[in-house]
C-alpha cells in the first residue's frame, strides 16, 4: 500500500525505574489512511524504536487492552484510524508501568 505522506507523532515515554520525568519522543512515520493507531505503534516498534512499551491483543476492538489517549481522547488503538499529527499518551489516572502501559491491577 502506498504511503500518503508522513505522520508526525509525539509519543509518551517513561520508565519509572530509571527516568526522573516522562518525555515525548518525536517520531515521523509513513501515513496510511486505512491504518490504525495500533498499526502506527507497531510500525514504531518494528522499524523505529523497539523499546516502546504498549499493550495489544485481539486487534478487533474486543479486549480493550490497547486503550491509549490520542490527542487528548481515550480510544482503542486497534479501532481508531491514525491521523497525520498525533500525541499518544497512556490512559489517564492509572499508575504508569512503562511508556503506554498502565497498571490496571487494582481495577477488580
Amino acid at each position: 500500500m502506498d504511503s500518503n505522506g508522513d505522520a508526525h507523532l509525539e509519543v509518551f515515554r517513561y520508565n519509572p525505574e530509571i527516568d526522573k520525568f516522562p518525555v515525548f519522543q518525536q517520531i515521523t512515520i509513513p501515513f496510511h489512511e486505512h491504518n490504525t493507531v495500533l498499526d502506527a505503534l507497531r510500525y514504531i516498534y518494528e522499524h523505529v524504536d523497539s523499546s516502546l512499551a504498549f499493550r495489544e491483543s485481539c486487534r478487533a476492538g474486543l479486549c480493550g487492552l490497547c486503550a491509549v489517549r490520542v490527542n487528548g481522547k481515550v480510544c482503542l488503538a486497534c479501532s481508531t484510524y491514525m491521523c497525520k499529527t498525533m500525541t499518544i499518551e497512556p490512559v489517564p489516572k492509572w499508575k504508569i508501568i512503562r511508556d503506554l502501559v498502565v497498571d490496571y491491577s487494582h481495577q477488580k
Partner: protein
Amino acid sequence: MQKMRDVYSRKIGSTRKECHILIIGAGGAGIEAALAVASTREDLQVILVDKGVLGKSGCTILGGFSCNAVLETNPDDSPSCHFEDTVREGRFINDQPLVDTYTEKAPVRVKELHAMGGVFEVGEDGALKQEMVPGHSHPRALFNNLHTGKSMALALRRIVLKSNVEICDECIILRILCHDSVVWGAVGFDMVQGTFILFECPAIIITTGGCGQLYRHSTTAIGSTGDGLALAYEAGAELQDMEFIQFFPTAQCYPRLLHLNPTFPSMLRYTAGCRLYNSEGKEFMREVNPDWTYTVTRDELSQAIYKEIQEGRGSPHGGVYMDVLHLSAEEITDKFSFSRIYPRLLSMGIDLTKDVIETTVSAHFSMGGIRVDTTLQTCVDGLFAAGEAIAGVHGANRLPGNALSEILVTGYEAAVHAIQYVDGTSPAGDHDTMYDQSECEALSALLERESGISPIALKKSIQDIMWDYVGVIRDKKGLEDGLCKLETLTSTLNQMSLSSKTCIWNKELMDAFEVTFMFTVALLTTQGALVREESRGSHYRKDFPESNHRTWLVNIIHKKGYPMTISRPRVSKMPLEGLYG
C-alpha cells in the same frame, strides 16, 4: 543502572508462590478450570497465571458467534448426533472418548455458565436460542449477537474475580519443573516486576490455547504463540496432530474495517447466502455445490479459496470477492445479527446493498496439541491440559461452535481430575536442589548481548516460512524447504539481542520468550505435515490430494528425544474398521 541490573541478576527462587493447582492461561478453559476447583474445594489453593490479562488476552474473547451444545429443547437432536457430526467432520482421527465427554457434558456446562452470567440470547419463550451452523446436523449454536466469546469470557472473568482464586496477570511461564516425570512446579517471569517467580505445586493445568500466530495471517490474539504446547513438550509430554491447523476461509481483508471481529464475513455466508467469486466473476463454490453456504466446512472452503488466490484469480488485496447485493437493506438488517453490523459498516463507508468486500484465508485454530488421556492428563504425572491446547476433540477439522463449548467441558474435567490427583499425592518436599538457573542465565546473556538478531525479526521469519511453506496447500518440496529454513534459524535463537535492556514490561523480551516456543511448535507442525502423505481435513497435500484411510487414519505423536510415532485413534461409539479396509 545499578538498580536495573539487580533486577535481572535476581535468582530463580527468591520469589516463591505455593499452591495446589497452577493453571497456565486465563482464557475460557483456564478460568472454567479455576472455578471448578474454587466452587467445590475451598481448601485447595489455585493460582491462575496469564502472560496477558485475565479473560481479556487470549482467543476466547474473539469467539465470534457460536457455542454449540445439544439442549433438550430440540428432541430431534442428541449428544450422539453431535458426536457423529464432530467425528465425521473431524475426518475420523478424533479421540472418540474425549468427543464423548465433550458432547455429553457440553449441555450442562453451557447452561451452568448461562445461569451464572446470562451469557446467551434467550427467545420470547424463555428458551436459549439456537441456530444452525455448517457441518452440524441440527441447530445447536447458542450465541450472543456476534460477540458470544466476549460475553462468555467477561462473565467468567467477573465470576472468578469474586472467588478465592489467586490471579497472576502478565507473568509468562518459561518452564515446567518435573522430577522423574512428576510435576512439582514452574518457572515464571513477571513482566511488570521484571522478576522470576518460582511456583511450587503438585499439579498444573495448561490452558494456553493454540498457535495461530505461527502464521503471517491469523485471526487469533497476538499471544497465541503455542507456549503451552512447547512447555508440555519440553516437560516430556506428547503432542499429537500438530499438522492440523485450521484456516478461517472468509476473514475480512479489504477494506480495512474497524471494531469488528475478523471473522464477521462468515455471517454473510451462514445467514445471508452471500455470493463468493473470483476476479473472473466466477462463483467457484456454487459450481461445485449449490448449497455451499450452509454445508461446506472450513477446510474445504479454505482450500478452494486459497487455490483461486494462488492461481491468480484473487482480488487486489489478496482475497476473493464477497457480496450480498441480492438483498435489500431491510433484508440485511432482518438477517440475524446484521441489525447492528449493517449501520456500523455504513459508518465506515461500506453499504452492503451496493458494495463488495474482499475476504481471505487466515490461520484460526490448532486442532492438534497436547495428547491427554480421558482424565485430561498427559503422560507426565500431575500435568493436565484443556481447551485449544489439547489434541483429539476436533480431529483434522473443527466445526464452528465446537471451540467455545469444548473449552468449558475440558477445562472443567481437567480440574476435576487434577483435584483427584492432588488428593492422592503426598505434600511437596523440599525442591531446593532440584532446579537450575538456566532461564536466569539465558536472560542475563540476552540482556548483555550488545548486537544480534531482533526477536521481532525472528518472529516474522517464522511466520513467513510457515505461511509460505506450511500453509493451506502443502507439498513435499515446499515442506522440505520450510523445514530446512526453520532449521537454519535454530542457531539464531541464542543470538538474539534486545534494543532495551530493561526488565520492566519489555515487549521485546516477551517476543524473545515467545519466539522460542514458536520455533519448537513450528518445527513439529512442519515435521508432521511432511510425514503425513495424504490429505485430510485442514491438512491438504497437493502431491497427495486424497485421504488414505488404510495408512493414515492415525495420529502422529511427537515426544522429545524420541522419533515420531503413529497410533490409531481411540474409538468409542464409531467403529473405524470399515474405513481401514
